[in-house]
């Protein structure tokens, strides 16, 4: 019965593979019955509530190859099980990709950042409370959305790209990675593939039960940040109710290449307005080659929310998003 509060971890197997091959083999063999466990901060709630019932957890954090920040010829590569605290404090990330360090430093709370990983933050599930409560909504494989209705509690939900499900991308690091044009490295027992951060996330129109394009048996093992946007000017802001724990009402991640006051190029993405980090290409186009000014910022803000379809209680996200875009462009 849904409303009865479960609180104890139920029986579930745990695998702690020590090397990549074993982990990938387990992921392939267990398929959907295996739960990829990293920091676990979006795992135990599901399991304690008995709202997700996989048979086994495959812990990825014992594998050194998937941890840490290293320099490559094209930029840097961050292992997916690097903790958010490590990323926020990493000298290389801080000096070249301050945007990501900043985004990682405001996730949830210090203790959650201490064990929570980049991979976990990117792959976390939707935070719609109806879904989290274990209701059989669209995202849980059902045939209804409780949030998208005149009376639904949809203050935190999507402005864009909703398709039956109106949940948003809760991740703070995801918009930062989209802005930085990161590449996601995905491994499986049959090899490795890469996909851009922007294409990694999947909206409900294409897949209503998964938030990423990760297939069964695949593991996100690393994220590559290109030199292109190293040391770029950046703007990051997250507006949430409380300054600890809470997910963004709207967040913005932007990088700029500027000469003097002129924006030569940029990449801008917003979090918490769509099921995926929302890349604002129309804004980027509008400001390319332009001088930073209040007028440019206002104009960009207005462009940013073109096509927004607010729900009953999230109209405020429209001006909020506009304001954040403005602030980013003002610099």
């Amino acid at each position, binding site marked *: 019965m849904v409303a009865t509060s479960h609180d104890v*971890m*139920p029986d579930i*197997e745990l695998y702690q593979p*020590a090397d990549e091959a074993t982990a990938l083999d*387990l992921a392939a063999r267990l398929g959907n019955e295996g739960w990829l466990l990293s920091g676990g901060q979006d795992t135990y709630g599901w399991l304690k509530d008995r709202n997700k019932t996989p048979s086994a957890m495959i812990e990825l954090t014992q594998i050194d190859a998937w941890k840490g920040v290293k320099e490559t010829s094209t930029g840097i590569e961050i292992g997916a099980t690097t903790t958010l605290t490590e990323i926020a404090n990493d000298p290389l990330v801080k000096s070249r990709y301050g945007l990501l360090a900043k985004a990682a430093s405001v996730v949830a709370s210090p203790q*959650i950042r201490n*064990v929570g990983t980049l991979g976990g933050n990117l792959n976390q599930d939707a935070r719609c409370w109806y879904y989290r409560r274990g209701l059989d909504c669209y995202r849980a494989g059902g045939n209804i959305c409780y949030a998208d209705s005149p009376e639904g509690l949809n203050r935190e939900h999507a402005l864009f790209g909703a398709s039956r499900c109106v949940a948003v991308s809760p991740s703070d690091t995801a918009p930062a990675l989209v802005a930085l044009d990161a590449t996601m490295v995905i491994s499986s027992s049959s090899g490795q593939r890469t996909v851009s951060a922007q294409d990694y996330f999947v909206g409900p129109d294409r897949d209503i039960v998964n938030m990423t394009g990760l297939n069964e048996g695949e593991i996100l093992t690393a994220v590559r940040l290109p030199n292109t946007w190293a040391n770029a000017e950046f703007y990051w802001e997250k507006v949430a109710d409380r300054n600890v724990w809470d997910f963004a009402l709207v967040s913005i991640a932007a990088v700029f290449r500027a000469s003097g006051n002129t924006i030569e190029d940029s990449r801008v993405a917003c979090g918490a307005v769509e099921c995926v980090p929302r890349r604002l290409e129309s804004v980027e186009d509008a400001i390319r080659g332009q001088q930073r000014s209040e007028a440019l910022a206002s104009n960009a803000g207005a462009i940013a929310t073109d096509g927004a379809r607010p729900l009953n209680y999230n109209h405020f996200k429209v001006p909020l998003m506009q304001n954040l875009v403005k602030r980013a462009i003002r610099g």
Partner: protein
Amino acid sequence: MNPQLTRRRFIKGVIASGAAATTTGAWYSATGQDRPSGFVERLIRLNVNGQTRSVDVEPQETLASTLRYKLGLTGTKLGCNRGECGACTVLVDDTPTYACSVLTHSMKKGRIETVEGLESANGDLHPVQQAFVEELSPQCGYCTPGQVMSAVGLLRANPNPTREEARLAMAGNICRCGSYDSYLDGVMRATELIG
């Protein structure tokens, strides 16, 4: 059952020309003793408060459960069991960690410290504890062990924090009595006591 699973299984079924996909359960029994590498052993040795203790830990057990119910270290409190309050904060290799939201098996290689392990051998309070007493930081006290552990973790990493730095470091601990100010007074006094 998540209907998606059914769907996925169906797809597999089609691909495998009708062969039903095996569940993990069936797979275990099929493999019997020959469990794949990476499978955890329940009997482990934990380094808690400087002592190594043998304990039988279920695969899914949280560190808070092990500490409270297997090792009797009830100073670690469960306020929410969901990583939303911080009452269960312990140190693992000096890092403040929500014991309710990590598996014991994940932390078994670490040096675990709880509020019970802070006093010196002769019974003297840790400077943070002493400072919290002097500043009367706790009110109801339920969040206090977590606040103490966060403060100890902070001072090990940064023995001379500013009040603002202390506030950021302590931010993962809720105090429903609202004693934040008094805890920060305590942390600042502790930096003096440590000298």
